[in-house]
């Protein structure tokens, strides 16, 4: 499944989608950034509620396919612009982290 495909699912809305054709392979859920850096794999969808500028740095360094902000969390304008510039896909999900992961699991 690509990030574009994910955005077609109800409840998932793109905030930035500079590289929507990236393929998603696996999921990592976490809010502690160093844990994410230690554990998330390249091409994972990363589900979190952290939406500050450091989230973008971690997403870029771990090379995840996209960041999914659970519970309807969104980005401040400044962070959104930075995500666009850094080429990071950020999607907001209306669901909890658990339900978001379940939907991804079924869709893959």
């Amino acid at each position, binding site marked *: 499944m690509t990030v574009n495909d994910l955005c077609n699912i109800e409840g998932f809305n793109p905030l930035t989608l500079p590289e929507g054709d990236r393929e998603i392979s696996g999921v990592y859920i976490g809010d*502690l950034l*160093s844990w994410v850096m230690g554990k998330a794999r390249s091409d994972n969808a990363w589900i979190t509620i*952290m939406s500050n*500028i450091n989230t973008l740095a971690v997403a870029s360094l771990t090379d995840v396919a996209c960041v999914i902000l659970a519970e309807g969390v969104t980005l401040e304008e400044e962070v959104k612009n930075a995500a666009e510039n850094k080429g990071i896909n950020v999607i907001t999900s209306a669901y909890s982290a658990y339900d978001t992961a379940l939907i991804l699991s079924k869709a893959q």
Partner: protein
Amino acid sequence: MSEQVVFTFDVDGDDFTSAGHASMQVKKNLRQLGIDPDIIRRVSIAMYEGEINMVIHARGGVATVSVSEEYIEIILKDEGPGISDIEQAMQEGFSTAPDNIRTLGFGAGMGLPNMKRYTDYMNIESQVGVGTTITMRVNLE
């Protein structure tokens, strides 16, 4: 004969949100050099953790990255408070980061362990009240 490539960055200690600029730039530079993506990932994550540490604890410092034929070496040098017990600081979950850092998603006590995990060699030299120098290497072969 190939010459060594060296990048040097000042890590700004006042601006927490800009932490990561140096490691992102290194990621970009290494990609241009055609380095293997997995090695780039390890180098840039280890360096980012180090950068964050310098911002949280040491009011910034200097990061130097050099690329030789054998390895990529990252040297992080600061004039911060120093680490009194390195063995304790290396334990997963041990952190002295203040609460405001935790709300940003850091301070989990995983920084130094991640730096060790992602590199092939890591050495910490630290003197309380003087500063800390961390040397990390990721082998290219």
